[in-house]
């Protein structure tokens, strides 16, 4: 556990990191960003908390088991969305033209629309959750393991 200044600043900053990561995830389909990038940023926020507070404190509410559950749910949502278009073919974009994220983007230069792209923004959100939880779980597990404690399943 680091000093009081570091802990206070980390407490305040993690919200900004979370918002920035979620912004990257949401706008993945029309500006640089996306699921992996945003998820990695949020995971770096979790790593900041881990460094500031020490793994003994963090493990009390951010257990590896919960993170694995979130990661699995994210991946399941991704595959279910991909299977959703299987009437036509696997990974078919069945939400284009429907009210949910359905705007068809006009090809060519222009302003980007968040509310477009079909299943792609939803898949980005799912991947964002998976990567967030997955990378945080990896770092947390390695922190606990290097400190000498065993990982509970």
């Amino acid at each position: 556990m680091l000093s009081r200044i570091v802990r206070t600043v980390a407490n305040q900053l993690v919200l900004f990191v979370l918002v920035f990561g979620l912004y990257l995830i949401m706008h993945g389909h029309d500006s640089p960003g996306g699921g992996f990038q945003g998820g990695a940023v949020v995971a770096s926020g979790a790593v900041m908390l881990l460094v500031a507070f020490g793994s003994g404190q963090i493990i009390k509410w951010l257990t590896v088991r919960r993170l694995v559950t979130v990661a699995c749910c994210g991946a399941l949502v991704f595959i279910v969305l991909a299977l959703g278009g299987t009437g036509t073919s696997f990974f078919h974009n069945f939400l284009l033209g429907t009210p949910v994220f359905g705007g068809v983007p006009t090809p060519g230069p222009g302003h980007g629309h968040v509310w477009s792209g079909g299943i792609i923004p939803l898949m980005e959100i799912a991947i964002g959750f998976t990567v967030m939880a997955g990378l945080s779980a990896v770092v947390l597990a390695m922190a606990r393991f290097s400190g000498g404690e065993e990982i509970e399943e």
Partner: protein
Amino acid sequence: MDFLTTHAPALIVALPLLAAFAIPLVSRAGHSARSIFSLAVLGATASLVAILAVDVYSTGIRVYTFGATLPEMALPAGYTVPVRIMFQVDGMSMFMGIVITTVALAAMLYSLQFLKGQSGQPRFYSLMMLLYVGMMGLAFTGDMFNMFVFLELASIAGTGLAAYRTGMADAVEGGFKYIVISAVSALMVLFAIGLLYSQYNVLSIAALAHYMEYSMLDMMALGLLAGAFVMKLAGVPLHMWAPDTYTVAPAGTTPMILAASYTSMYALYRVTFTLYGGHIDTAAIGWIVIIVGVLSMFIGVMMAVHQTDIKRMMAYHAISQGGYMLLGVGVGLAVLADPVALASYGRDAINGGVFHIINHVFYKALLFMTAEAIFFRIGTRDTNKMGGLARNMKWTTLFYGIGALAISGIPPFNGFASKLLIYQTVLNFSPVLSAIAMFVSLVTLASFAKVFYAAFTGPEMPAYREVREVPRSMLIGMGILAACVVFFGLFPGLIVDTIVAPATEALINQTGYIDAVMGAVP
């Protein structure tokens, strides 16, 4: 039913992937829920593979484009090159699919009982499913970058399985060697893909084969791809990781990692026969494959003879038998440009090499499972400490005997059929190679007989008086493979006509593969 047949290639990959991520959630409900769930998913996938096999063997190459309005439409409207990721299932891919699925079923049945009392069991089943998805994707894909992604997926899942018993020091070392080799070889594959993309601007295998001009950069890409795949399949100059990794992998995972190596061999054949097919000097490349095969056969069996660890001996034999497959297909590749030789013995040589893949995976998986059964009961792999086990473990002894006779090429078992094909055809090509192959077979028989006498026959050792037979699910897993070994040995002609000949035809017929995607584009 029609829906299943149309979408089978995608569902075969999607269903186990779904299961791999659902298993940690399902395990909250208990051990038996998880076992039933994984067996059910694998059984459903196996029936989908059977449906797809019937369809591919009757109608020809199946193309499945992801995200298109019609799955068979490889070229989107108005395009002349394929831009979407696609799966292209021909005879050879279907053959590998059948091999992988059968081994996965047997391995899953075997592992059910083996894991009782181990920790982290949801991870084991998830990793098995991910390894299965990686191998099936590698076998079915028609796109080079997709091949790289599935290769990495199979490598990572295979490492997780190989190093599963983290409480044992040698397991983590074997796993570490596997991931380093896999990472380096996959990065070399990616470098070659970058070279190919920079020249032709397409990533799909059929389109690359169509536009291939074999410049200097393409030669470099071929060298990198061949080297990387030889590293992954444990061909001899680059085989150092295989004995360590095959020895330490637990329970039914060694057959799966073995299947991953032979799927890399399939990828090697896909690159040399289909991607570069009409342009390379097949005699030269064929001779290189033959030399790697002969070295693997010889050095593998020579290193195996003096091993005392039973699984390490079997791992060296796996390297040696891989040499047989490379020899058979290499002879076929060397005579590919010569139609007379191809018709008379080249096609049968490739038949022999490809048939040996499925035979070898079956009897080697059976042998590894018997070795793990012995380890499960008496806790050691050292043949110097074993003795007299035939009294207590009758079924295991029988399965080991079947496997040992099959690997040595003794008549009623399947090893004899494929080895005879290889001997006869290689004799036409070069008698020296055939003589080396027969000598290697003799030494194989000798080493397995030595271990049989040491471990199973002989006086009963007092330490092993209480040893019982292994649990029933393990016996069922071994029994499936033993039944396949005997069946393939009794009816080799049937198997060759149904499964192997379409695979050979698919390898030789490059233009069919290209036309299935590019249609009539000039």
